[in-house]
């Protein structure tokens, strides 16, 4: 019986994939004819998908990103080259399974040629794999894990991002702590089920040790944990200078509070996941985090963007809004350069981007892994606000 059911499932798989391939081809044929008939009526349309967590544990990220995406399209007049842009939005709830579901819907049902999103590495890794297999361009604003654009040493050719990657963030944080803050010992706490925090933690550890610092403790927890007292009691005993917390705002707020309760005096340092108005600023006071951009950066591009965003939404843009805005602009520029709705040509145009200025960096181009080359910003939590400290290459 088991052998037979296995046979059946193989057969079913074959039938399904044949069906998928044929319908896939059919879909493509259809869009071509559509494109041809549209050309007669002068207006050519390209659909762009947008995926972000609009609900769930990091929904403030998604809301900001959506504002950045909307503003970029609005400023471009919903046009790139000869093409009219038609956005299709989807919510992944920061859930890896849901992310693939919505990406499948965007690609197979809506027929998008490119996707802006998603925001966290957790969801963007599966999305980028799916889209790359289906030859659809993906550009994420904020997913920082190296695995987003590279899968087991092999580049996902259709995938790009507008942010630096985790190694850079962890390395810069370690360098900053050693050289500028002159701190020598650290403890690290990270989520063992999340590629983002694992990546930051490992790279921080590596760079910190290589620079002459000492990592006294490296402890893992699970996503749903709320009690960290055992681990924090151990850490309190070792009395480190730094507590490195590379997780998202809600988790670091909770850990930070319990760490102070346990009498840990260490400086909190973290990554871009801290960037939220929902961070517990009172608890995290005096902490530093690496980020993609600061609204206080005096560069004219930054100040202009902040002004435009404030005029529309009456608040300061955070990194999620900014990077998604940058990602959308990089994509629009590529569509314009390629002047085509063929994802392969858009992808080539993106890869060949040269000296394109975006808000989070000047004269950006992509390296061979689809990562932009630009500096990292360091921010401090001071007086319940974020304060610009430095931008480090």
């Amino acid at each position: 019986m088991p052998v037979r059911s296995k046979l059946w499932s193989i057969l079913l798989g074959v039938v399904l994939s044949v069906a998928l391939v044929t319908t896939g081809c059919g879909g493509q044929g259809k869009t071509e004819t559509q494109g041809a008939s549209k050309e007669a009526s002068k207006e050519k349309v390209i659909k762009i998908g947008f995926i972000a967590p609009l609900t769930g544990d990091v929904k403030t990220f998604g809301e900001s990103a959506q504002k950045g995406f909307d503003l970029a399209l609005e400023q471009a007049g919903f046009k790139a080259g000869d093409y009219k842009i038609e956005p299709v939005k989807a919510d992944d709830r920061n859930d890896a399974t849901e992310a693939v579901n919505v990406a499948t819907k965007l690609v197979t049902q809506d027929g998008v040629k490119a996707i802006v999103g998603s925001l966290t590495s957790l969801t963007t890794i599966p999305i980028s794999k799916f889209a790359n297999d289906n030859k659809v361009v993906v550009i994420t604003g904020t997913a920082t894990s190296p695995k987003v654009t590279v899968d087991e040493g092999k580049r996902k050719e259709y995938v790009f991002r507008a942010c630096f990657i985790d190694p850079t963030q962890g390395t810069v944080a370690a360098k900053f702590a050693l050289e500028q803050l002159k701190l020598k010992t650290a403890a690290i706490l990270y989520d063992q089920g999340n590629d983002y925090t694992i990546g930051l933690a490992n790279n921080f550890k590596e760079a910190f040790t290589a620079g002459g610092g000492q990592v006294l403790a490296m402890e893992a927890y699970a996503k749903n944990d709320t009690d960290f007292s055992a681990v924090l009691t151990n850490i309190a005993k070792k009395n480190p200078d730094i507590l490195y917390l590379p997780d998202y705002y809600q988790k670091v707020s909770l850990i930070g509070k319990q760490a102070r309760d346990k009498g840990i005096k260490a400086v909190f340092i973290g990554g871009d996941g801290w960037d939220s108005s929902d961070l517990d600023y009172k608890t995290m006071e005096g902490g530093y985090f690496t980020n993609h951009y600061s609204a206080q950066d005096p560069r004219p591009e930054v100040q202009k963007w902040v002004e435009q965003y404030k005029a529309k939404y009456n608040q300061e843009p955070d990194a999620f809004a900014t990077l998604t805005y940058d990602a959308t602009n990089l994509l629009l520029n590529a569509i314009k350069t390629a002047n085509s709705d063929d994802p392969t040509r858009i992808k080539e145009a993106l890869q060949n981007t040269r000296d394109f200025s975006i808000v989070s960096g000047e004269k950006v181009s992509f390296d061979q892994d689809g990562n932009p080359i630009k500096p990292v910003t360091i921010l401090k939590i001071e007086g319940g606000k974020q304060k610009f400290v430095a931008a480090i290459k």
Partner: protein
Amino acid sequence: MEHFLEQVLNGLQLGLMYALIALGYTMVYGVVQLINFAHGDVFMVGAFLGYFGFAVWGLPLPVAILTAMVTCALLGVIIERVAYRPLRYAPKIAALISAIGVSLFLEYFSSLKFVFGPNYRVVPRPFPEVHWEIAGLSVTNIQVIVFVVVLLMLILLQLLIYRTKTGMAMRTVAVDHNAARLMGVNVDTTISITFAIGSAFAALGGVLYAIAYPQIHPFMGIMPGLKAFTAAVLGGIGIIPGAVLGALIMGQIETLTSAYISSQLRDAIAFAILILVLLFRPTGLLGRTETEKV
């Protein structure tokens, strides 16, 4: 040694938290023989109501807690009336599935924007935190409050069940519904009261949990609910002191595992011990081996 005692204290706090939830779980099971999977979600609703009470509506803390308890008691009664009573004489599995349905409904309904919303919320401390140094150990007022509340709950429940008429009715219903009815016990009312008390305690636990671990969201009840259920089974489900014992053991295992073995193995070891205990004592630590009724 001091360090070890401090870890034991951490484990005690965690264990007492589980006990807060496990008490309601086990009481409902003891009377109705139903594993009320929605218990963890009533706990979540309680945490949210408490938070709204003292942090948003500006009620004094005791009033906020009382509001949460009363509302959740009502919620418990409604859940029982709608989802369990119609299935009381159906096979056990039907009520269990219904309970899982109620649990998921509460989680996703609470996630809706016009209810509690899907976001994580930071809960401000309703009173300043005080640290005491006792023999090198740091004890907080929150730990003391939780300890006192669990103790009071335990005593109250024992008094209720063994010293009052309602308690006697509960014990009668627990033994046999039909015989109880023949003896003049109003079975429906008794079960409603059981659910009301269990849910009120869940709400109290929720508010205290939110104060100790100051962050709430609609899915916060799942893990503590599961752990508390495990604790109740470990101690012997249906036995009130067993729930507290099981919860304290769970808290110690988890804390000591992450302190001295590995924080990654915590849940694995905690649940492995549960399996071992059940293999050798299927009725739990305080459970009596019952002879099957024929």
